């Protein structure tokens, strides 16, 4: 069972960057007024940020990281680890990690690589970064996490199009002997891999002139090509409201702590009703569960650090916080971490482009 603690790592700062272009749910003309109102009430997305041509996850994350490194006053030569969490990298190959190493003018002694996860990616990324930091005796690490999911959504698919937003984030992690431990539990269930997927364009279903660009209309009236993101909303909903509370309780039991011991529970911003159901099942007070989904939509692996930046900002800068973070979705993959932050550097959100 993947339940474990890592001592000796601390978060020194978190930053986030979003495209300045805003799309409003109320302007989405494929939904009736009633549908839009129900969507805003249920799913929670009122607006989201969308990249234009020429702006990628790499750009958003590098901009966020540049700001963070400057505000922290970090010596770039001391950054020896860069982990890039994304499912929307710049090129088929190489990955984003090495390009980010160069763009951020980091040393050639820095190990840099990608992890291809979405909604659970931030939690996995923290566990990988902290593990390597400890094992390799590295002083400073960067965790970049983000996606531009809007590029792969079909305008004719109401279950997907108004849900996703684009964002890139950077988290600064340091070796530290006085910050307590981070406790994790991590899970996978690949039997649900089709619940959230882009079917074509990989090696299994290679891009084909005959089928990859052809729109197909499904029974619910939504229409998309196999190069678009497809969601089985009800199955993901059912999975999340079952597995997430179970896994949260498990980590609390492992740590011998209770809900009351934490200042905030930051859930992946998937769907407001889903997160509210999780919150109610766990009996967490409303003011302990912040939301950024109304302004930014579902931003994949960026959603947890983005929510820290936009919803906790000043509190994270001025306080010692006990946080419980939970990511869940595409894979299917899910996981939690409990950790403390102490007066972190957390600049205001950056608008790009």
């Amino acid at each position, binding site marked *: 069972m993947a339940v474990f603690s890592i001592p000796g790592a601390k978060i020194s700062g978190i930053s986030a960057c979003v495209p300045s272009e805003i799309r409003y749910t109320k302007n989405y003309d494929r939904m009736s007024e009633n549908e839009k109102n*129900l969507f805003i009430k249920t799913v929670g997305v009122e607006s989201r940020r969308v990249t234009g041509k020429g702006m990628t996850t790499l750009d958003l994350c590098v901009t966020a990281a540049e700001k963070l490194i400057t505000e922290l006053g970090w010596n770039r030569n001391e950054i020896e680890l860069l982990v890039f969490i994304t499912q929307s990298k710049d090129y088929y190959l190489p990955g984003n990690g090495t390009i980010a190493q160069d763009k951020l003018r980091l040393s050639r002694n820095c190990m840099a690589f990608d992890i291809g996860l979405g909604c659970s990616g931030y939690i996995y990324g923290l566990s990988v970064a902290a593990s390597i930091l400890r094992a390799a005796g590295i002083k400073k690490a960067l965790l970049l996490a983000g996606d531009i999911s809007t590029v792969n959504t079909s305008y004719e698919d109401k279950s997907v199009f108004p849900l996703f937003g684009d964002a890139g984030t950077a988290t600064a992690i340091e070796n530290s002997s006085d910050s307590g431990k981070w406790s994790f539990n991590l899970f996978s269930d690949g039997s649900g891999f089709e619940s959230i997927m882009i079917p074509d364009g990989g090696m299994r279903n290679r891009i084909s002139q005959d089928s990859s660009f052809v729109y197909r209309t499904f029974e619910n009236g939504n229409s998309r090509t196999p190069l678009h993101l497809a969601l089985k909303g*009800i199955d993901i909903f059912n999975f999340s409201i079952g597995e997430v509370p179970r896994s949260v309780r498990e980590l609390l039991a492992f740590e011998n702590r209770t809900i009351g011991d934490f200042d905030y529970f930051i859930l992946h911003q998937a*769907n407001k009703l889903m997160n*509210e*159901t999780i919150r109610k099942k766990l009996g967490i007070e409303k003011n302990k569960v912040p939301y950024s989904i109304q302004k930014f939509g579902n931003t994949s692996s960026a959603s947890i650090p983005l929510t820290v930046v936009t919803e906790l900002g000043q509190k994270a800068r001025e306080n010692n916080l006990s946080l419980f973070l939970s990511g869940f979705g595409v894979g299917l993959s899910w996981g939690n971490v409990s950790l403390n932050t102490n007066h972190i550097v957390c600049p205001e959100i950056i608008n790009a482009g």
Partner: protein
Amino acid sequence: MSDINDFIKKIEAEFEEISPGSLNPGTNFREMKDWSSMHALIIIALIDTEYGISLNGEHMRSVSTIKELFDLIGKKKVTQQHIND
């Protein structure tokens, strides 16, 4: 387990556009105006929080009336208790 009238009241309370007293056990919820997958999510969330029963997409597709949905909850509840015993 509470009766079907309680269940109907709970559903009516969840949906602003449904006036109280307009649903009955035979109502086919799929034929309601503007029925969408979002309504299905609201119902799944309601059933999970109120009755501790989790329904997936397949369960939801297998029923159309409120009575069928209510009976499904009852059936799942019995199975679950059996497992817990």
